[in-house]
């Protein structure tokens, strides 16, 4: 499958947005650890904005940055990919259900669905375009890119891919450690006009290379499944050719050949 990347976004430790991180990702400036905090989403009305937690904020921050200046933003199909979903909300419900007299709030319940972030995005920008939300455990970014690439290839659609994960609360955190929040987003199209790079995707039924640097920027995938996107983001920032292997499952991966435009 051949697809073209135009918009791109990132938000993670020491990566406060694409524009501010491009040189770091390209390797021309050093990376320095700094906590990433997602801002309240300016695109939502004030009442909704206050209620959003970090998960939705990470997702909407990345989706907003990748689509900045995109004139057909509301026409883009969307793929939202997250292994953990809104763990703070799900964890809050589990806590409430196991507390005497604990009660679930209706808002908490509708925010617990895995497609909540996608729902807020489409509400915020007034988009009626199709949307799919995916899980995928450690292969979640590869799964999202595969589904987004497939939508581009099969339907000729322009697609916003938004991948995001944030830490779960205890006691779930001990079962599924996630060290920090991380989000990335890409605008993908079937045509090269205005593109930054060409991506050629291929499913490969062999295990992914699952080794990461011990520390520094390239160690981030150890702390968050979505940060497995980093090799792709680094190739895009450095505007260099690369073949990136993204985990899908423990037994398969997505080969992604990057060619700058």
């Amino acid at each position, binding site marked *: *499958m051949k697809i073209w990347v135009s918009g791109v976004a990132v938000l993670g430790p020491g990566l406060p947005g694409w524009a501010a991180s491009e040189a770091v990702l390209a390797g021309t400036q050093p990376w320095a650890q700094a906590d990433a905090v997602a801002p309240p989403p300016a695109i939502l009305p004030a009442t909704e904005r206050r209620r959003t937690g970090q998960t939705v904020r990470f997702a909407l921050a990345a989706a907003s940055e990748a689509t900045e200046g995109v004139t057909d933003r509301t026409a883009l199909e*969307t793929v939202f990919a997250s*292994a953990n*979903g809104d763990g703070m909300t*799900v964890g809050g*419900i*589990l806590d409430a*259900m*196991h507390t005497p007299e604990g009660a*679930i709030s*209706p808002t*908490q*319940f*509708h*925010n*617990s*669905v*895995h*497609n*909540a972030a*996608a*729902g*807020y995005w*489409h*509400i915020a*920008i*007034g*988009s*009626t*375009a*199709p*949307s*799919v*939300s*995916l*899980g*995928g*455990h450690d*292969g*979640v970014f590869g*799964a999202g890119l*595969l*589904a987004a*690439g*497939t939508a581009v*290839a*099969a*339907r000729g659609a322009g697609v916003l891919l938004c991948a995001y994960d944030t830490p779960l609360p*205890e*006691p*779930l955190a*001990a*079962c*599924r450690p996630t060290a920090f929040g991380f989000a990335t987003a890409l605008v993908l199209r079937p045509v090269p006009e205005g593109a930054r790079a060409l991506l050629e995707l291929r*499913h490969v*039924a062999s295990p992914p290379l699952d080794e990461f640097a011990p520390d520094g920027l390239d160690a981030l995938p150890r702390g968050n499944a979505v940060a497995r996107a980093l090799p792709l983001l680094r190739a895009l920032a450095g505007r260099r050719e690369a073949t990136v292997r993204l985990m*899908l*499952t423990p*037994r*398969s991966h997505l080969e992604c050949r990057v060619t700058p435009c």
Partner: protein
Amino acid sequence: MSGMWPLAIGARSVVTAFGLGTEALRAALRERRTGLAPCAFPGAPEGIWAGEVPGLEDATPPPELAAYDCRNNRIAELALRADSFAEAVARARETYGADRIAVVVGTSTAGIEATERAYARRDAGAAGLPADFNYSHTHDLFALPGYLAARLGLNGPALAVSTACTSGARAVMEAAALISAGVVDAALAGGVDSLCRLTLHGFNSLELLSRGACRPCAGDRDGIVIGEAAGLLLLEKPERAAPGSVLLLGGGASSDGHHMSSPHPDGLGAVGAMRAALSAAGLGVGDIDYINLHGTGTRANDAMEDRAVHHLFGDAVPCSSTKGWTGHTLGASGAIEAVIASLCVEEGLVPGCLNVAAPDPEFRADVAAGGNRAKPVRRVLSNSFGFGGSNCALVVGRAA
């Protein structure tokens, strides 16, 4: 793009409140028997009903996959045993190779019921969950496709779709796209969802649960009965279809962009999804013989859906909800209703809403109620809508 459709349904399987298999569901549809009963699920809200799958105690995974054991994967396991589905997948694996078959399945809550149990059995004062609780193989959304792929020895792409109550239908669309894009030759697609306290208490907090058997489209309908189910389809390229078999003719989706848990009152999103499905199938409204509604039984959904259906079809096409049989099986509903749609084509059947003598007098679409109608049914439009403003519609039936 029209090149995506149709797809052959090489095999199908359902597990519902009627137990294993398509034939049990077919008989219940014909005989107008409900699978709903007062809810016996431990820790459920008082006074509600449910569509519980029987026989889960005997549905443990094979020993080498014991880590995946949870209520959701037990229902998935039953779906592999039903309708000779695992055997059909094994044959497909021989034909295409394990790398060329995708697993694309939807679920809203996967095995979170195992997490609920883990919370409940924590030692007094202990902060952590019991050591034998396996998050990644039960609670995590990927536990469902992970289990199915491991159990069937498949190594194509595996996707966990979770778009609330459209998950099963949306998974079918994603699977079709993977085949169309040439990533795979076939796909196991569908949805599995299982009873859990989070869902039951969540819908209860929204005051959306019926206090008896649900009565979709009735004037005095009082809400949803939650069910659990699995629906699986083996999708293949159309040239593989058995002569005269029912095909998956198209699918379409939309977003409401309106509210997280209330549908757009005029059903704009529903209209968009139905239009997209018809367009994908290359069909017009006159080509549809029956519409299987999302029809949850809530005041808001059914009224919205009546407006949306009437907007496109007027009162020319009979429609009904089959949730009076199965309950609302959430992320499985779109998949089992695709199977129901195929049964309606095979049987020449329009199943009138169960437990409903006459439709809401305010409704303007042709809602079938009071009994089943016998008529030739060549093509069925099947609707699914969900929280987050997610809408999806599939078209199932005979080729033109």
